[in-house]
């Protein structure tokens, strides 16, 4: 793939730009404190991911990537954000601000994650085309940033958004690699929807039990206090 998608051509540049836009939106997720804004940032990330998938479909001449994009848009871009908004309304937590790590500390850690993923990906993929390498580096960064959102938040809702954005990173990796079979992407998409249903049940149980979405309450019922 690296041959016709070299450095400096339009196909390469736009793919790179869209990948980086997904990454920047991960940083927005890390920066945001309000639940509603986080859901919207997540939805925007999924839309950009859709655009990236369609662009890769056109650039790699791989029609199945359009299907991936369509699935991403339907599930991650529309259904899940709408459901999350509905949950926020039902549980009446739309005003809540998630106490988390300081902005500067989490952003600095985030840049560290990006540097780490670049250090890991570049030496191991020396033989691949440059687009694959960079897309992998960007995708790994998105995954790591999703994990960072997961550990830096206290509310179950925002943690779930972290997991979902992590999965956006997986899709980004899948569309960047040439010849990733469609069945993998399909299973990832199904997994997300299933996981989301489990999360939804979890939210309501947590809320019913502790009257809060703060997962710190779960520490009390953990094994060490039994």
């Amino acid at each position, binding site marked *: 793939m690296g041959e016709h998608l070299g*450095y*400096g051509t*339009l196909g390469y*540049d*736009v793919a*790179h*730009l869209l*990948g*980086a*836009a997904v990454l*920047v939106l991960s*940083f927005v997720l890390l*920066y945001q404190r309000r639940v509603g804004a986080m859901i919207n940032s997540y939805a925007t990330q999924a839309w950009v991911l859709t655009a990236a998938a369609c662009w890769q479909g056109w650039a790699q001449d791989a029609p199945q990537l359009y299907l991936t994009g369509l699935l991403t848009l339907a599930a991650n871009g529309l259904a899940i954000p709408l459901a999350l908004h509905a949950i926020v309304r039902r549980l009446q937590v739309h005003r809540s601000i998630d106490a988390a790590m*300081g*902005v*500067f500390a989490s*952003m*600095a850690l*985030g*840049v560290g994650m*990006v*540097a780490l993923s*670049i250090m890991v990906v*570049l030496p191991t993929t020396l033989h691949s085309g*440059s687009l694959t*390498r*960079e897309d992998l*580096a960007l995708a790994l960064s998105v995954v790591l940033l999703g994990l960072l959102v997961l550990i830096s938040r206290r509310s179950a809702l925002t943690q779930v958004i972290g997991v979902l954005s992590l999965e956006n990173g997986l899709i980004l990796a899948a569309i960047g690699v040439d010849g990733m079979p469609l069945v993998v992407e399909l299973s990832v998409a199904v997994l997300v929807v299933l996981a989301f249903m489990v999360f939804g049940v979890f939210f309501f149980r947590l809320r019913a039990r502790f009257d809060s979405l703060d997962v710190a309450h779960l520490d009390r019922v953990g094994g060490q206090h039994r």
Partner: protein
Amino acid sequence: MSLLADLLLALAAQVLHVALLVAAAPVLVGVVRLVKARLLGRTGPPVLQPWRDLLRLLRKQPVVAENASWLFHAAPSAHLAAILAAAALVPSFALGMASAPFADLLVIGGLLALARVILALAGMEIGSRFGGIGASREMTYAAFAEPALLLVIFTLALMVGTTNLDAIALTLREGLVGLRVSLGLALIAMIAIALAETGRMPVDNPASHLEVTMVHEAMVLEYSGRHLAMIELAGALKLLLWLSLIATIFVPFGIARAGALPLWWLGGLAAWVAKIGVLALALSGFETAIAKMRVFRVPEFLGVAVLLAVLAVVLLFVSQGFA
């Protein structure tokens, strides 16, 4: 064309450029105020109102506190001179002006820092607490905005191979660099820096006279008459300078090339007016839509700009390789 004609042309472009900036800066402020008023459903002042205010202020006698030293008197002129010098270096309609060899981004950043320090000193001069608070806040913001600006300059220098603004604009105008992620990140960082440096909405409210929220206005509260006129003109010039800087680096299209005939300047002028107009509209819309940040959140906001600039540098290393 002979060397002399080239030199004369460059000088003419320079003189025109400075005259244009000084004439247009208050108009730009007027346009932003008018659009903001319209967006809020008010009629708004006419576009030329800032110019009228300036002329009126120039006729008024400045009232100066008893314990003011020479610094208080000299600061407005020095501030305006530093901003004007920086503005003369940022190309508007044509590249290759007489100042092009000195138009280094680091020089521009340095001149802006100088202007800021002068004003902060003047704010503390009288000994009123309010000016001191304004000065301290301004310097706190600067401590975050300047590293971010340096990192953006570093990104551009890595990409183009020089910190000369004229050369950077020429390279980007020819599209030699292409569409780059680092450029996009640098643009976001640059916009955040510009908002902080010009005291616009999420950082400072230019229309505010509410005591606890003022930054820039608190610093210059003691000034009146022609001193205030100079400071206001410098503020307007600074806004135009930053918009021009963003336009020159990130959308350098349409700008006349060095050594082009004056006929091309007309095209460059039209492109410049269009670019600044779009940026001014975007600024007005953004300021109307967003609320001012708490003072303690501004360092976070600017810290994000620093980190985005770091990210731009890091990604630049990825695409260019570690070679």
